[in-house]
């Protein structure tokens, strides 16, 4: 039996993702481990790798990681073919169209800034809009605040940033939550171990839901 390599997104999902997988029986890195700058931690049955959230689907897609935790936003943006058997009960938010003050509805004359060019293009194409998409790496709302673009497509957690900058939340494109993603070949060849992990994660999620 080989060691499972698990990709964990650094940032806001890191801690709850590790906690969820630890509750399913995978031995996590220690707190001391996590304070180092190392990105790989080995345990007897699992090897943890820590990568940017947008890279988790890439590592899993190409077999460099067997499984990982990735937001649906990144799964959609990468058109990941990995299996997605578990949706975690944390890190929920929405992928939304947000407009600059007075910009009105999105149309072909609009400009859209986003960290998600593929998702944005698909959304606009589905509505027959030839709107230009400007790809940005972060602080995407600023594009609408400074009128670089008329709209942005980005994640919204509480809506506070939009409110502070007088931006208008217009439409929800997708409800976003982190999912367990598993490479297809790993799933097929390690089916017993993977199924056990999925069953434990389901039980753990059910326990958590019941305790709320």
């Amino acid at each position: 039996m080989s060691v499972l390599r698990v990709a964990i997104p650094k940032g806001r999902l890191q801690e709850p993702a590790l906690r969820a997988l630890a509750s399913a029986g995978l031995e996590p890195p220690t707190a001391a481990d996590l304070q180092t700058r190392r990105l790989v931690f080995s345990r007897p049955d699992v090897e943890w790798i820590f990568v940017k959230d947008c890279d988790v689907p890439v590592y899993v897609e190409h077999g460099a990681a067997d499984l990982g935790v990735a937001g649906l936003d990144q799964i959609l943006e990468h058109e990941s073919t990995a299996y997605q058997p578990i949706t975690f009960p944390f890190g929920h938010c929405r992928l939304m169209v947000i407009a600059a003050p007075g910009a009105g509805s999105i149309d072909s004359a609009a400009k859209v800034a986003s960290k998600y060019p593929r998702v944005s293009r698909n959304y606009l194409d589905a509505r027959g809009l030839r709107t230009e998409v400007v790809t940005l790496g972060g602080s995407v709302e600023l594009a609408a605040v400074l009128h670089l673009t008329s709209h942005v497509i980005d994640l919204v957690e509480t809506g506070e940033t939009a409110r502070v900058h007088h931006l208008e939340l217009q439409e929800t494109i997708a409800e976003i939550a982190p999912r367990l993603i598993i490479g297809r070949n790993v799933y097929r060849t390690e089916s017993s171990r993977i199924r056990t992990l999925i069953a434990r994660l389901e039980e753990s999620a059910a326990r958590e839901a019941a305790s709320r």
Partner: protein
Amino acid sequence: MTESRQRTYPLGVRPILADEAARRRSIESRIVEELEKHSFREIILPIIDFVEPYEEVLARDVQRRSYRFTDREGDLVSVRSDFTPMIARAIAPSLRPEDLPMRLFYRGDVIRAEATRLGATRELFQIGAELIGLDSLESDVEILTLAARLLATAGVRPVVTFSDVRIAERLIESATSDDEERRAVRSALSDRRPSDLRITAAAGSATADLLHRTATGTATLDDFATYPPTAEVGERLRAIERALRSCEEAEFLATPDDIDEAGGYYSGLRFRLFTPQSRVLVAQGGRYDGLYRRFGTDTPATGFTLTVDHLDAERSDPRSSRERQP
């Protein structure tokens, strides 16, 4: 010509130099010898063919990955990307009952644009086998064990997963009669996205429960063998599993909930062979009983294709990226 063009090749193709060529030819000759030992006879197919005869047969993603162009006569042609339908087209029109069962093998390159895989080779050397005219459980077992044996001949003990495409068909049919809903259910099952499964109350609780467990990967062969719509197919998989216990050339795993996207020509058994360490898919195949009918003769068939490039890469460097220490 630009300097970069002089030094490089089109994406996904490369020359194979002497050492690697010798290794591959050695694998090829051992596999061919084994096929001939099992009474399989060689068939040689053209490298290009018309697109039209295959349009109803090939899955959409396979069609998208093929290289197509208009030839000098103005016909739309395609470079070979899948041997199996080409064999059916070549054999079916002249097939006579007394020719059956027929055992054939083929070898050669296929070219596919694998756009999403990093560094994926687009030109692949494949060897495959076809068992035409038999639909028995024994013929399923014969083709599965032959595939495992060929890899053993090349020095690899594969992990073989096998399922049956009728399990998905019957499960989805029992869930809903609406075509749009069936497509959505299949999509959620094939990607294992239980959160996207939309099951109406009409499906019944047993069906809904099995659909959910199929999507999460917690359904077992026993579940499918006892659920009435899939029981017959589940029992056949169980029988295949029992028959394979004596074959030591591979580790066989029944994966009845392995569900493909819609389309393609498979009609029953579906299997895949992976290298044990790097989990690279090196061979795949199954049963396609309706394929020959589309080309003029209604006869069952089963077979598989083995990709020598992947096999050679595994044998040369079995420590894949996931096995190496970073």
